[in-house]
Structure formats: structure tokens, C-alpha cells
């Protein structure tokens, strides 16, 4: 009974948030495009819907704020008033207020925001926008309409004058406690819902076919399916392994041939299943990108910079966990670009650049990776400044700075506690720096690259695996144990003669195609005993790329590539121990997956001291 009400409220919160998320970017579009009836209509409708449902549920502050926003949008839509920047500011403020009000309902903290100041602001903004004459006209029109309604109402006996809305709201409010008692309880998951990614296209299709093609499913159910699919993948890997071994021993046996055929079929179906389940968790990155136009606008306005924002590939689909975790890093990067990267108009003109700064955010799939780029045409990252700063902060020594490559210097900005501006502005100086970018991206098994050129601009490129559950892994053997490392970070594997390894100032190095790369021994890193015959004159090398650091790792044996399902190990902190998780291989052994990002951090932290 009370549950029914809870469910309705939860549903309302989810939908209201979606509505706001949908209309938020439209404001910015409106501001850039100017008057556009479709956009205005869409925003008006969103506010209107929100107000309607909130009214039923007795959320009066939402009704009040939405009502006034709706009135403003309506007047703009109908051409009665012009959309001005102050008016837009008030509307955007209202959207923020609505979001806040809704979030209070979501967490049920019982906090009642005082919206009276905002309501006054809305009213005065509307008043200022409406010239006296227009108001006068409107009054006359309203009076005429009212008269007409009355006249008609008397003709049509069935229609009576609408009752004032005030008492009804109260009625709805008191009903809140009683109403659900009569209603049949409907079971609906309400913890967390995800909208199927093909929302738009599905809606298109439903227009034609008139079928409800969308289904809201509890995320935990999808994750359960995902988990089970993972188990099937593991079983399939084992089956494939057994079948191929049988095939070696009993080749030509029709039964074994049958088995091979069946496992081959199972192999295909399992891959399809895995992909299908994976897709269920995918959502367009629009969900994240959607808030950027507004953010960029606000930042630009606050700083007095003129900025053009372009967004591409917002329909690129990424895993739900990416949607949840990539927002913060991107916000930091974009803030950084606007705050530190883009110059003021006069400075730009002096450099012969267009006065308006440009930021391009894009997402696309590249093989099994999702690439997200933030490109600005600002002044680029000044390596000298970065170097100085890092030395001043004690992050590196003067001596080290001389040996560092440009790449390494750029990467200093990701160190905790680094900020290139003397005085951090309100935007960038919030206690969290670019190190958040690296940490969050690493959590998603991805990496960040920075490409920067003086006065041309900077590119921040984030590369992420398509899914977090399955990993293309390189299986290696160190000591007696087999380990897996993410294939995406292995650039190449080679066999070298031990004599090729050189020693420079205590650091082992290897020259590969004229490039000198630091080399580490995996057995030493992992602290396991090397059991390979010391007399062997060769060793295997993995050339690793983590972020834009390149280094070599020597291992005892290379086993090969395998698609592994990551199982998290309860009770360990991957960030601490450098173990991403475990997996079960085709032959049934449990194999640890090494978190190379953590490992590399450890290696380079050690080497810089």
C-alpha cells in the first residue's frame, strides 16, 4: 500500500530526472540557434509534464517552479517575449532547482528547499521581459477568452468552469496517504533502472508498429545474466580445450568429430550470447555528454571566454559502468581545457587565431576500444611551466627533469596535487585535480593520453575497453604460476637474447628498433622465485604501453592469447595489490589477472626516487 506510493514516487523521480536530462541540452541549443519553435515546445512540454505529475504527488515546490518556468517558455514559444540571456539564466537556475528538489525526493531526506527567492526571481524576470504594452494586450486577450469560455460553457451544459487549482492540490496531498490502499499493488523493480539504449529508434519503430518495444529491467538482473554468461564462457573454454586435446589423441573418431562440431557451434553461440548480454548493459554516451553544453556555457560565461562546443558520436554506446564513471574525469578535462587551455579572445586574435575558442568532444569505437577525445585549440600545455611546477612541488628533482621525455613531462599533470595555474580559479581549484582523471579511467581498465602543441591546442584521449567483464588477455608464465595481463596494454611480444639487456645507471634497458626502453623482470616485480634454468640464454619480453609510458617486462614463458572472464576477488583492493581479479582458464586452473596500471605506477614511482 505505502509501497505502491513509494513505487509511484520512485518512478516519478526517475522519469523527472530523465526529462530534465533531456531538456537541459536543449536550452543551450536554443541559445545558439535562437528562436526555434520545436525546441521551445519540447522544453515547455517537459516542464508541463513535470508539473502535472508533481501536482498529483503533492510536491508543491516542484509545481511552483515548473509552473513559472512553463509560463516563461510558453510566452517565448508564442512569441510574446524574447528569450534573453537573463531570462535564460533564470530558467537554467530553475532547472537546477528542480533537479535539487527531485534529488531530495529521491533520497527521502525530507529536506524542504526554500524556493520562494527563485519564484520571485522567475516572476520578476518574466515581468521585465514582458513590456507593459504586451502585458496589456495579453490581459485583454485573456479577458476575451474567458468571456468566450463562459459563453460556450453556458451553451454546453456538460462543461463547467474549472475549479481553482489550490484546494485540489491539498486534496491530492491528503489523498496521498489513502489513495494507494485501494490500488492493486504492482510489482516493479525500483532500485535502479536503465533505459534500453535503442530508446530513440525503438520509439521510432513503435510509432509505426504501435508496440511497446521498451522494457525497464532491474540492473541487478542484467548483471546476473552477465555473470551467468561469463560462467558459460568459462565452461566453453574448458570444453574447447578438452575437445582439441581429444582430437589430437583420437583424430578421425567420428564421435570426437561430432564433439568438435558441437563445441564449435557452442563457441559461436556463446560469443553471440556474451555480446548480446553486453549490449544490454550499453547505453549511448549521450547520457554523459548531455550535460556538457550547459557546463561549457556556464564556465565560459563565468570566465568571460567565448567558446564554441562541438560534440560528436554521442550515440556511441558504452557500458553502464563507463557512463557512471567517466563523467567526473571528462568534467575535469573540459574544465581544465576551458580554464587553462583556451585563451581570451584578444589573446587569440593577437596570435592570429579565430576569437572564439573551440572545444570538440567526441566518442567513437576503435576495434575493441571506446575512444573519447576532448580537443581544444588553446595555447597547449607549456612543458617548461609544468616542469618548474613539478620541481617546486617536489614531485621531481631538477636532475630528473633534464632526463624526462616530453611525454613524461606532460604526464606530470596527472600527479596528485598538481596545478599549473598560480592562482586556481573557482573552476579548477576544488581540491581535486587531474589525478582523478587517471584514477577513474584506470578503474575502467582504460588509459589517458595527452597530445599537446604550443599555441595549437591539446588533445586528451581516453581509451576504454568495450566491456569490463571480458578481457582479451595475454597468458604468461612466471615462476611456476600462470598469470594473465590485459592484451590491450601489450604492444608486442618478442624473444631476445639475454646479452641484449644493458644496464644504464642501475636501470636495465633494452633497445628495440633504436628506442631505449626500461626493462623490468616480472618475477622480481611479483616477488616470485624464478625457476627457469639460469643457463638459458634467451628470455621473453612483453613491450607494454600503459598510458603513454612504454616499457619492457621479461617473463619466463609466453603461453598465448585468451579471452578471459574477469571474476572479482572479494576482500582485496585492486588498487593496493595490483591484482585486477581472477579467471578460470580452459584447463580449469585459476589464474590471477595483473593490473598493469597499478604495477606501472609502482614501477615508475620507485624509479623516480
Amino acid at each position, binding site marked *: 500500500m505505502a509501497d505502491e506510493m513509494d513505487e509511484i514516487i520512485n518512478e516519478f523521480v526517475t522519469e523527472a530526472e530523465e526529462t530534465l536530462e533531456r531538456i537541459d541540452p536543449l536550452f543551450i541549443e536554443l541559445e545558439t540557434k535562437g528562436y526555434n519553435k520545436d525546441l521551445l515546445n519540447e522544453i515547455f512540454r517537459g516542464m*508541463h*509534464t513535470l508539473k*502535472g505529475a508533481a*501536482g498529483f504527488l503533492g510536491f508543491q515546490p516542484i509545481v511552483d517552479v515548473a509552473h513559472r518556468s512553463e509560463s516563461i517558455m510558453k510566452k517565448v514559444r508564442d512569441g510574446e517575449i524574447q528569450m534573453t540571456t537573463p531570462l535564460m539564466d533564470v530558467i537554467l537556475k530553475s532547472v537546477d532547482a528542480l533537479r535539487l528538489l527531485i534529488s531530495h525526493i529521491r533520497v527521502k531526506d525530507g529536506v524542504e528547499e526554500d524556493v520562494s527567492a527563485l519564484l520571485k526571481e522567475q516572476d520578476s524576470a518574466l515581468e521585465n521581459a514582458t513590456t507593459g504594452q504586451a502585458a496589456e494586450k495579453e490581459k485583454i486577450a485573456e479577458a476575451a477568452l474567458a468571456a468566450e*469560455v463562459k459563453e460556450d460553457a453556458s451553451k454546453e451544459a456538460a462543461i463547467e468552469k474549472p475549479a481553482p*487549482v489550490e484546494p485540489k492540490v491539498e486534496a491530492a496531498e491528503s489523498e496521498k496517504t489513502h489513495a*494507494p490502499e*485501494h490500488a492493486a499493488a504492482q510489482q516493479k523493480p525500483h532500485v535502479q533502472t536503465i533505459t534500453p539504449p535503442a530508446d530513440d529508434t525503438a520509439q521510432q519503430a513503435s510509432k509505426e508498429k504501435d508496440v511497446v518495444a521498451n522494457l525497464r529491467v532491474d540492473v541487478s538482473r542484467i548483471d546476473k545474466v552477465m555473470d551467468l554468461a561469463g560462467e558459460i564462457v568459462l565452461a566453453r573454454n574448458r570444453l574447447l580445450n578438452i575437445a582439441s586435446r581429444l582430437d589430437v589423441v583420437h583424430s578421425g573418431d567420428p564421435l570426437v568429430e561430432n564433439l568438435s562440431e558441437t563445441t564449435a557451434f557452442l563457441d559461436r553461440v556463446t560469443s553471440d550470447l556474451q555480446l548480446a548480454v553486453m549490449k544490454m548493459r550499453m547505453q549511448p554516451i549521450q547520457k554523459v555528454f548531455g550535460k556538457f553544453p550547459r557546463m561549457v556555457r556556464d564556465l565560459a560565461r563565468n570566465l568571460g571566454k567565448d567558446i564554441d562546443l562541438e560534440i560528436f558520436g554521442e550515440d556511441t554506446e558504452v557500458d553502464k559502468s563507463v557512463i557512471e564513471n567517466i563523467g567526473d574525469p571528462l568534467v575535469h578535462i573540459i574544465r581544465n581545457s576551458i580554464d587553462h587551455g583556451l585563451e581570451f579572445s584578444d589573446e587569440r586574435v593577437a596570435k592570429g587565431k579565430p576569437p572564439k575558442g573551440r572545444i570538440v568532444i567526441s566518442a567513437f569505437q576503435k576495434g575493441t576500444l571506446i575512444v573519447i577525445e576532448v580537443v581544444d585549440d588553446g595555447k597547449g600545455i607549456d612543458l617548461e611551466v609544468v616542469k618548474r611546477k613539478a620541481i617546486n612541488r617536489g614531485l621531481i628533482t631538477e636532475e630528473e627533469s633534464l632526463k624526462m621525455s616530453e611525454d613524461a613531462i606532460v604526464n606530470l599533470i596527472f600527479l596528485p596535487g598538481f596545478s599549473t595555474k598560480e592562482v586556481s580559479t573557482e573552476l579548477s581549484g576544488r581540491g581535486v585535480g587531474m589525478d582523478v582523471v587517471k584514477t577513474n579511467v584506470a578503474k575502467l581498465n582504460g588509459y589517458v593520453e595527452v597530445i599537446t602543441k604550443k599555441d595549437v591546442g591539446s588533445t586528451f584521449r581516453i581509451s576504454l575497453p568495450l566491456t569490463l567483464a571480458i578481457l582479451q588477455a595475454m597468458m604468461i608464465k612466471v615462476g611456476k604460476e600462470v598469470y594473465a595481463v590485459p592484451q590491450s596494454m601489450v604492444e608486442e611480444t618478442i624473444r631476445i637474447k639475454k646479452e641484449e639487456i644493458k644496464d644504464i645507471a642501475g636501470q636495465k634497458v633494452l633497445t628495440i628498433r633504436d628506442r631505449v626502453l626500461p626493462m623490468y623482470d616480472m618475477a622480481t616485480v611479483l616477488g616470485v622465485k624464478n625457476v627457469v634454468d639460469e643457463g638459458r640464454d634467451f628470455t621473453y619480453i612483453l613491450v607494454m604501453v600503459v598510458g603513454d609510458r612504454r616499457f619492457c617486462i621479461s617473463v619466463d614463458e609466453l603461453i598465448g592469447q585468451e579471452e578471459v572472464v574477469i571474476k572479482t576477488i572479494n576482500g582485496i583492493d585492486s588498487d593496493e595489490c595490483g591484482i585486477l581479479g581472477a579467471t578460470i582458464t580452459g584447463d580449469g586452473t585459476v589464474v590471477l589477472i595483473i593490473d598493469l596500471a597499478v604495477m606501472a605506477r609502482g614501477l615508475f614511482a620507485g624509479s623516480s626516487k
Partner: protein
Amino acid sequence: MFDLKLKVLVVDDFPTMRRIVKNLLKQLGFENIDEAEDGNMALNKMKSGNYGLVVSDWNMSNMEGIELLRSVRADDTLKETPFLMVTAEAEKEKVIEAIKAGVDNYIVKPFTAEILKEKLEKIADKRPSLKAGG
């Protein structure tokens, strides 16, 4: 009382609103309630099913309530279907448009089961099909 076996179609593009209206109808005793998320879908459903009452929102992204009403009234087999329009305060001035288009009655959001009942009773006075045994 109304014929509670009648099939009712609730049309609104906001799922929460559909659910609220459905709940209110259930409180009045209606059991057979169907939903549509816009005018187009409603029209298609009406053409293939026998609906005894339509409760439609005005403001919808895909075919507004008023258009749905006009289409219903223009269709020979559907034109006698009782039609209750759900409107918001802001649309009061447009109600006249709905009256001209042949709406049976309208109801302003937010409303209670009581008010809904009153409205339906008014419709039932004119449309016997809505009454129990009528």
C-alpha cells in the same frame, strides 16, 4: 454507477501520469484499463479494440490530445466513444478548442478520484453506454 467492465484507454506520454490516472480509475472500480503513450498509438489501439472510454492528456509529444480527439470524432466507428480530456491550468484557455472538437468533458490536473467520478457521472448522463446496464 458506471459499467465497470468497460475497457478504458488512458493516454499520456509520461508513464507516472498513466499510472496515477490508472490508479484513480481503479479506485472507482474500473478493472479493464489499457494505456497508450501518444495519440497515434491510442488511435491504433482504438481501431483494433473496443474501448468504452478514453481519458487522454492534452499535451503529448507525438500527436496531441486535441488531434486524437478530432481523429476519433472523425472516425465513423469510433466517434461515439466518450472522451475525457486531461488538461493543465495553463491549457484552460484552450478548452474551448476541445469543446468545439467534441470533447465530452475535461478535467484539470491535479484531480482526485472524487473529481474524476463527478466528471464521469456528467459524461454518463449524456452517454448511456457508460452507465452500468446501459
